[in-house]
């Protein structure tokens, strides 16, 4: 019970915080991803410690260390069995119903402990919980490390894909793409880059400046010229905002146009992204639900068009709408390859990666209502 209790309470705590963070900016899918990763880590660590404990239980007769076991073998066994039952079993109505009384029963148990048994029980519990916490924190540190080093790991694969005399097209600015191209340049591959400026943020200019500083032949083109130039391009490499469970990509606005043009000209369309961008959700109506509309001032100067905002003409409804979306959705059939820190993948493989990183329980991050 302490195990279940410990993991469950951890999960609840993380869920509560995660729900708030996700609600703060639902469009920023990476937040939800990391929350779910942590939840998955907790479950996994719990599972693995339970498994080892069960194995340890089988050997406990011969086991010399672990005085908790010797002291309270019966209690440990019962506890372990219960924990095993709940963690190792697939979620079902019974387990769900069992969980509640378990956590409800746990506090009385712990509070009743006052004698030596209780002390040792709590000691055992705290050591176990410490072990779980320790494991979880270790795993999370690894996760942080992974996220920090994702660029290096992705860039290592650059030489496999960029050869000599290549022409590469990208739109806007992605740090992953930049590191990717740097790495290829380090390995003395010769290639040219067409950078589409990526209105209305014009981050393409920034990227071009950085590439030029590194000595890469860069040409800046307008977004409208993408179709015109793509016939001379060998490969399109872009970054992503998020990769959805079906292999679709949520990317900065304009990249869907590039993907369509690339498909028409049979140019490989490569998406580079760290695995923290992998989102276990399936996109439904992503253009609307996973999008953010920004201020029209990027497109139009209010001063020039203030006279067009006359509301009187059509009975109060404005004649002029300005649309400035931030993201674009790219269906999986347009993507040739995903390059993540775990290697290169087909869009059809994304579901498998998601099964590795996430648990099915965590798809909806909602703080559990206490009974």
């Amino acid at each position, binding site marked *: 019970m302490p195990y279940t209790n410990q993991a469950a309470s951890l999960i609840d705590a993380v869920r509560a915080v995660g729900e708030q963070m996700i609600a703060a900016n639902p469009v920023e899918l990476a937040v939800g991803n990391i929350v779910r990763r942590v939840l998955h880590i907790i479950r996994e660590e719990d599972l693995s410690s339970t498994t080892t404990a069960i194995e340890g239980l089988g050997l406990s007769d011969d086991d010399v260390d672990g005085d908790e076991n010797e002291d309270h073998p019966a209690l440990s066994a019962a506890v372990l069995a219960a924990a095993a039952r709940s963690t190792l079993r697939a979620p079902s109505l019974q387990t769900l119903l069992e969980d509640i009384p378990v956590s409800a029963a746990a506090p009385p148990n712990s509070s009743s402990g006052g004698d030596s048994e209780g002390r040792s029980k709590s000691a055992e519990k705290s050591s176990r919980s410490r072990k779980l916490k320790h494991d979880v924190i270790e795993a999370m540190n690894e996760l942080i490390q992974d996220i920090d080093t994702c660029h290096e790991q992705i860039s290592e694969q650059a030489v496999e894909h960029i050869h000599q005399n290549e022409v590469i097209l990208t739109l806007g600015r992605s740090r992953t793409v930049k590191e990717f191209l740097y790495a290829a340049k380090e390995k003395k591959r010769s290639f040219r880059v067409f950078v589409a*400026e*990526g*209105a*209305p943020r*014009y981050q393409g*200019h*920034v990227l*071009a*400046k950085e*590439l*030029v*500083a590194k*000595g*890469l*032949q*860069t*040409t*800046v*083109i*307008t*977004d*409208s*010229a*993408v*179709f*015109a*130039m793509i*016939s*001379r391009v060998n490969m399109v490499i872009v970054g992503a905002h998020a990769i959805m469970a079906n292999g679709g990509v949520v990317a900065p*606005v*304009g990249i*869907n*146009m590039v993907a*369509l*043009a690339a498909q*028409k000209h049979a140019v490989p369309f490569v998406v580079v992204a760290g695995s923290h961008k992998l989102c276990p959700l399936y996109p439904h109506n992503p*253009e609307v639900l996973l*999008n953010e509309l920004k201020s*029209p001032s990027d*497109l*139009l*100067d209010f001063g*020039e*068009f203030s006279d*067009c905002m006359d509301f009187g*003409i*059509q009975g109060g409804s404005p*004649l*002029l*709408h*300005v*649309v*400035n*979306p931030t993201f*674009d*959705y790219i269906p999986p059939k347009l993507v040739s390859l995903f390059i993540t820190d775990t290697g290169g993948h087909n869009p059809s493989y994304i579901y498998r990666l998601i099964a590795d990183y996430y648990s099915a329980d965590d798809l909806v991050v909602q703080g559990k209502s206490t009974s």
Partner: protein
Amino acid sequence: MDHRRVPRAVIDPKVRQVLVVTPPIPRPSHPRPARLRRRPPLRPIPVPTPTLTLTLTSPLRRRRRDAALVPVGSYNPSEPLLGTPPMTSPSSRADADLNFSDDAPSPPWIGRTGGGKVASSFPGSSGEMMAAAKNLPKSDLTTASVVKTLPGVSETNKGALVEMQADGIGATGSQKQKTTKAERRAIQEAQRAAKAAAKEAGGVKSAAASTGEVLAASKQAKAVKSPSQKKDGPQVTAPVSSSEKKVGDRLPEKDRKKDVPHPRMQFDDINRVEKAKRRAVVNQSEARNRVELFRHLPQYEHGTQLPDLEAKFFHLDPLHPSVYKVGLQYLSGDIHGGNARCIAMLLAFREAINDYSTPPKKSLVRDLTAKVSSYVSFLIECRPLSISMGNAIRFLKNRIAKLPHTMSELEAKSSLQSDIDRFINEKIVLADKIIVRHAFAKIRDGDVLLTYGSSSVVEMMLVYAHEQGKQFRVVIVDSRPKLEGQALLHRLVKKGLNCTYTHINAVSYIMHEVTRVFLGASSILSNGTVYSRVGTACVAMVAHSFRVPVLICCEAYKFHERVQLDSICSNELGDPDVIAKVSGRKDLNHLSNCVDNENLQLLNLMYDVTPSDYVSMIITDYGMLPPTSVPVIVREYRREQLWI
């Protein structure tokens, strides 16, 4: 070989005649010049226009070739010009506009005697004396094209002569002439040369170059040469990229006979660029950091030419002031848009013709043609011609060439002026009206119409539909660097249309709501591709992927025989500096510091090519056509247009 073929006088059964056609008047049986034996007799292709009571009859081909008449439609030559905007016409000098299709004076750069009208020495090419049947001294031709590789020098020109005569005679009548193989080949070459040379936005600086060179041989040399003489030592900054002469580009003699379209000015050949520069009126300095891919197109520094030209305003005597003015307006971007540029140019020519007086001892036709050519090359230097302008120039030269010798100067001038007025009226103004009516039929209530950039015809159509009371919304997609959509947005909102405005990256987002896409075009090429403002291809592609119909509104005079596969082969490059600077956003100056870095190139494409599979329908003044019908229109009706 020709003995096998019997002149066909049978009506092609495949062509159904929907409209009543007056039977063709049998051609007077004079010995026909070698005709291009290439296709079945052209029949009037009935294109049913809806019930529009216009003076414009359906353009049926007349087989009758009458030097004076050529009544294609029933337009009254003296019909007043309807509402032509009083723009100074940029006399774009279309040296590219090789007026081969008729006996028009050949552009000097191919080495013909400018405007010289000599009876063609081509065997069997007697018959009607085309105004400009030129005798091309072979030597001339070989040295001629400095800048243009003219395939099949003498043969081409000879063939062109023949072609011109053949065309001049009024197209394929009901009889086929037997032609020798060589003649046919020559004719084909000439045809191709004519057509390819006719229009190129790619900039035909060769005009100036060849002008100076070739006209040395002709009497009219002086008129044209003065501009080049006036030019001070060219302020030449050595071309940034050394261009080795591409062997493949220069067609060897043996390729003359092959089916090669006429190449235009090759800007990647250093010798030609040098020669062109020497004769140019406008000082062009090469742009730094030229994009490799576009070495074959001119890339110049912008901003240096205008002040230079302004200073020279009072020194360029041979150049008519209205032409000069229009050139300056082109250079500064005051006049833009296919129709506007064309009309402005034609009006400037009209004024120039008005003020023209034939120098003594010179033939009006030749001299005037040479003058027009000089104007055109000046305009090319200001800004490369659009295809519509090229066609208009071809028309004008044709008309000049067709002037009967018996006409007095005054009559000739007034006839030309009325021709110009008629062209503008019929081909542009009336054509726009017809297109608007057709397109209006395609709009339903509740539609969401998307348009890209700013097209004059589409704008007229939207306003008309709104005035007729149709309920619809408009989505305007715009892009950098020109941001033409903002002006359109302004005008439409002022008229009370419900508009949505966005930038081209968001077209995937907005396409979900759109029911129809209306686009304009700078030209439509013979393989059905649409040559228009850069970004049109992206919009059409996204619309196609969302299954939204794409309708192109384009006047028929903008059609061209050229074909093009992608946007790189020929294009126009604008000022690269506007890419680095984003207007209205002072904070975005990331690139301002490293513009001089040799690794950085800025590319400002003006046009792009939309493949025909993305286009659902083309709306022209001849009706609504699929993209595959464009070469048909070009073949059937272009001939007529030149006869006007």
